[in-house]
């Protein structure tokens, strides 16, 4: 597929700083989110497996973070002053790979190898192989802790980067998340932002209210000393607003953005059966066509 109709950084000169809050229209960011969904379908098809519904719920978050919110430098994934992004729910990494290629973190051609032995791009992200990955993940619940470490290092090294950690809502069932939450507020880490992808489902075949309740998420984080913001995480404008209003990295209270999303967002059959689509099913035949059509129809 081509990128027509979708804003791209592919033509940005290497080394340019992509500033925080840089301009992008809602339509552009929305298109980008759909592009992420399409590319996710392509890559899963290519590899033979992957997590559609978990990636679809965060497409708007990815789009806004990487094309509007985060301070980055094109083609320099290790630039020391970049904002960091950690994907706690690492099983949605597949949606990051096209973005990272577009940002010049590695050649677009790398995507062609996705799913083959030896590919640096894997189902869960590996920081040693996939440039742009600020930390590896795979075991749910670790990355908020790692993010605390990265944010603490920011303070010790006197750098003003922000550290974003995107967790699943099932992921916050892990106690380590609460150890990290406690430490983040204790250490006054206003440079740390947790984003909870509240799509209502973990890997079980019922919603989390049935399998292991996690609500009220905002009250839990706020009792652990965090600012909380609750938004529709599939609504570009709400996502942009929430990130635009983040307190300064030098402030003293970490922020938790609770992004209410739909697991499988953007493809009806997945929205209706989010967990049948968690892992183990492949889009084929008419379903595949239908899913692509649905997504493409929204590109403006």
């Amino acid at each position, binding site marked *: 597929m081509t990128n027509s109709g979708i804003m791209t950084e592919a033509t940005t000169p290497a080394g340019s700083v992509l500033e925080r809050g840089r301009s992008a229209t809602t339509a552009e960011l929305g298109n980008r989110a759909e592009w992420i969904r399409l590319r996710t379908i392509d890559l899963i098809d290519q590899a*033979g*497996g992957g997590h559609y519904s978990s990636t679809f719920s965060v497409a708007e978050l990815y789009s806004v973070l990487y094309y509007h919110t985060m301070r980055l430098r094109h083609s320099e994934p290790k630039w020391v002053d970049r904002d960091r992004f950690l994907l706690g729910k*690492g*099983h949605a990494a597949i949606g990051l790979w096209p973005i990272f290629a577009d940002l010049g973190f590695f050649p677009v051609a790398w995507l062609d190898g996705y*799913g*083959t*032995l*030896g590919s640096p791009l*894997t*189902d*869960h*992200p*590996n920081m*040693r192989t996939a440039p742009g990955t600020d930390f*590896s*993940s*795979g*075991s*749910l*619940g670790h990355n908020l802790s790692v993010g605390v470490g990265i944010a603490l290092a920011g303070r010790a090294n006197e750098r003003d980067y922000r550290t974003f950690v995107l967790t699943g809502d*099932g*992921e916050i*069932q*892990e*106690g380590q998340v609460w150890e990290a939450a406690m430490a983040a507020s204790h250490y006054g880490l206003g440079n740390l932002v947790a984003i909870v992808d509240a799509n209502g489902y*973990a*890997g*079980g*075949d019922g919603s*989390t209210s049935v*399998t*292991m309740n*996690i609500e009220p998420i905002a009250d839990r984080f706020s009792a652990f000393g965090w600012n909380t913001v609750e938004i529709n995480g599939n609504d570009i404008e709400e996502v942009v607003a929430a990130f635009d209003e983040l307190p300064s990295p030098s402030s003293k209270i970490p922020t938790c953005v609770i992004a209410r999303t739909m697991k499988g967002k953007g493809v009806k059959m997945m929205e209706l059966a989010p967990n049948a689509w968690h*892992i*183990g*099913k*492949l889009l084929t035949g008419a379903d595949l066509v239908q899913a692509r059509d649905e997504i493409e129809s929204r590109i403006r």
Partner: protein
Amino acid sequence: MTELSTEEKMEDIFSEESVKRAAQARNIGAELSRLNDVRGDVAVLVADMGVVAGEFRQRHPTHFFDLGIAETNTMSVAAGLAAEGLIPFTMLMSCFGMLKCAEQIRTDVASNHLPVRIVARGTGLALGFFGTSHHTVEDIAIARSITNMTVVAPSDFNAFLSLVESTIDLPGPVYFRMSSGAEDASVYDSVPVIERGRFMTVRPGSDVTVIAIGNGVVAALGAAEVLAGEGVSVEVIDAAYLKPVDEQAILRAAEHTGRILTVEEHNVIGGLGTIVAEVLGRHRAPSLLKIFGLPDEDLAVSWPAVLIEHYGLTVTGVLEQLRQLLAEEK
């Protein structure tokens, strides 16, 4: 390398295929259901992904507990249930089992001699598509270092049944190291009798001995068949018990063939190879020994079947190891 179809690739433990298999009679949930029908004291715990419990959920809802994505809690909750007389089976993705809950297992379960059963599904490379975080290649090392732990490695579903039933009244914990084959390979035609602490000779032979676990047993049997055609007699031993371990069987092999190949889906450090080498070393029983398993280095990530080929844990791979071992001078 063989080109795999999408369907074949997807045959991991979460696939529809696998769920379908799980809906059939010969699956863990069904077995545990049957067991609880008879005993009434069996409980099943999962940490999310309750589908792995199969029909147990529906048939015994008062004895089924999903604790969410919280493995350490799951293990300690199981200890509490066991303290009250239940026999809890914790069914965890292996990579989040022994490694993630080592302390809870040692301190809450094993030190207290509680009958928790840890069914670790997807050991070795079976979840390897998901990433390095999902490889389970240290679990035997950990499990056997924990006092009071019984460690078994079923090579097929019949072996699993045998081991579940023969250990059900054991007062302490049991770690079931489930290879992917433990749920669908075919080593035993019927449920074998596996005595505590005994290996199983699944094929007699006199020139060389393979001691294997899990998927390695099937690969070894295949290699033995090939070599039989060349007039080489390969003994194949299924190391179903890793703790207590069958020292006599190892020493017998050393004496009998004097050439031992170990095959395992575990780091070559700390697993079956280590156990066999250790027994030989401790008993001054010199034998040629080749330890074949996963190298102690960053492991590749891909579909399980691709990884198994990559690391040679196949008939062809074991065959090659055997040829090398046979070529060595005694």
